């Protein structure tokens, strides 16, 4: 969208450097390093409680890391004088529970940040919103309230809401875990298309089929440590650690 985004190819979209996160006595992340290259899809896998969601939430500072840094497009967003609101507006986030705003129409859910954060006028914001809704196949639902939509439709609106901000990277926190099985595919299809269109994505998921097929890079976390990472073929076909082997044997 603007010239400033055309940063050199060598700078990764997101780099996580020696990230630690403690909740009181409990240490959730122990020195995680992760690099997300531009246009790539990275899947974070691991058992519940392994810290993968916390890692994702640290990437837009919904959780404040205890130490370490998160570098977005070469900018350390954990730095003191960073305007976090502006940074977050360039990072899309899709939640397990959708978190659409129930008191607003579908259209308004999408135009809210376009108008409040980006400063678009109503007409332009609605044009963008309609285009993004078309991308997720929900143009017929602009005037609906989230409560009138199925879970799958709600999640697709949530994706459209994030995409409307033209984010540099999209974070997905178990986007299909709250969905009825028959609704999962529609959401995964949209994510697959995004990957094909070279959206940079970090996806926390239990959908191993999706990770194997769509991810460029898979990272396995266990008890807050990033134990193994690599292309899906390596991670899924030739796991090196016992932890990953036993995890895969349980989920595959």
């Amino acid at each position, binding site marked *: 969208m603007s010239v400033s985004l055309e940063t050199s190819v060598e700078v990764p979209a997101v780099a996580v450097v020696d990230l630690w996160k403690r909740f009181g006595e409990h240490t959730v992340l122990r020195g995680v390093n992760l690099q997300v290259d531009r246009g790539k899809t990275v899947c974070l896998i691991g058992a519940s409680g392994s810290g993968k969601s916390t890692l994702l939430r640290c990437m*837009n500072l*919904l959780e404040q890391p205890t130490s370490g840094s998160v570098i977005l497009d070469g900018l350390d967003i954990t730095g003191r004088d960073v305007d976090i*609101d*502006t940074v*977050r*507006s*360039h*990072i*899309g*986030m899709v*939640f397990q*529970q959708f*978190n*659409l*705003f*129930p*008191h*607003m129409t579908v259209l308004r859910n999408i135009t*809210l*940040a376009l108008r*409040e*954060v980006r400063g678009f006028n109503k007409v332009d914001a609605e044009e963008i919103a309609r285009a993004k809704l078309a991308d997720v196949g929900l143009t017929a639902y602009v005037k609906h*309230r989230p*409560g009138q939509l199925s879970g799958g439709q709600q999640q697709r609106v*949530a994706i459209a*809401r*994030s995409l409307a*901000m033209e984010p540099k990277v999209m974070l997905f926190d178990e986007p299909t875990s709250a969905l009825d099985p028959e609704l999962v595919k529609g959401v995964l299809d949209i994510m697959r298309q995004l990957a094909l269109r070279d959206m940079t994505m970090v996806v926390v998921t239990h959908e191993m089929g999706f990770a194997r097929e769509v991810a460029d890079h898979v990272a396995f976390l266990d008890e807050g440590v990033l134990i193994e990472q690599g292309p899906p073929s390596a991670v899924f076909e030739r796991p090196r650690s016992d932890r990953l082997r036993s995890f895969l044997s349980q989920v595959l």
Partner: protein
Amino acid sequence: MPTGLHNFFHTFFDLHQIADVFPSLLSDGLLNTLEISALAIVFGTTIGMTLATFLVSRRWYLRAPARVYVDIFRGLPIIVTVMMIGLGLPIAGLRVFGRNSYPYAILALALVSGAYMSEIFRSGIQSVDRGQMEAARSLGLSYLGAMRRVIVPQGVRRVLPALTNQFVAMVKDSSLVYLLGLLASQRELFSIAKDTTFQTGNLSALTAAGLVYLAITIPLTHTVNLLDRRMREGGAVRLADGATAAAPSLQLLGTQEGR
């Protein structure tokens, strides 16, 4: 009719007395009561909403003073607050509003109702799912922006019934302005009824005033309840924008009730 019963009816329901006092109740009293209570509600709601955002703040230096304020104004009898403000301030030389009793009474009522309403708003705000704030912040909205557009509108909807109680209380408590002394033209419902009662030695004027109070409070309650039901069903009323969207079509309401 036995004498006892006759006396009872004569004391409370003397139709001549009621008919005599009604015109002045309606021409002066009703408007004055509405003026005091409406302004007290407006200012009280503003105070309450501001305090509520302090009460849910993570910063102790915002939370602590708000807490102290609420504890004091909720803990004092309202009659004490009205007299402290309405008589106390002028005596202390703080004639901020001159000699007119109204602003002092409105201020006192607003301060008290602000304390109650802040707790109502706080509970509403805190009942909104954490994910709503997270989603709003993830889109780049500031904390205050998220509060204004996402959290508060949802929180307020949930506490509308509780707010109604507060609005009704304001209408009733507006009568306390009589404590501060009023010009004849300033008398509101209760003062007119009280003065009439003292002149006639008959309480029917109070009955008449009571009827007018009910004529305000009962429709008020039902209007807010209707608003509440509408928002639960169709979410048609958009507080967030300060604008009222079209009411949901009957068909839409029908399908939703059927769910």
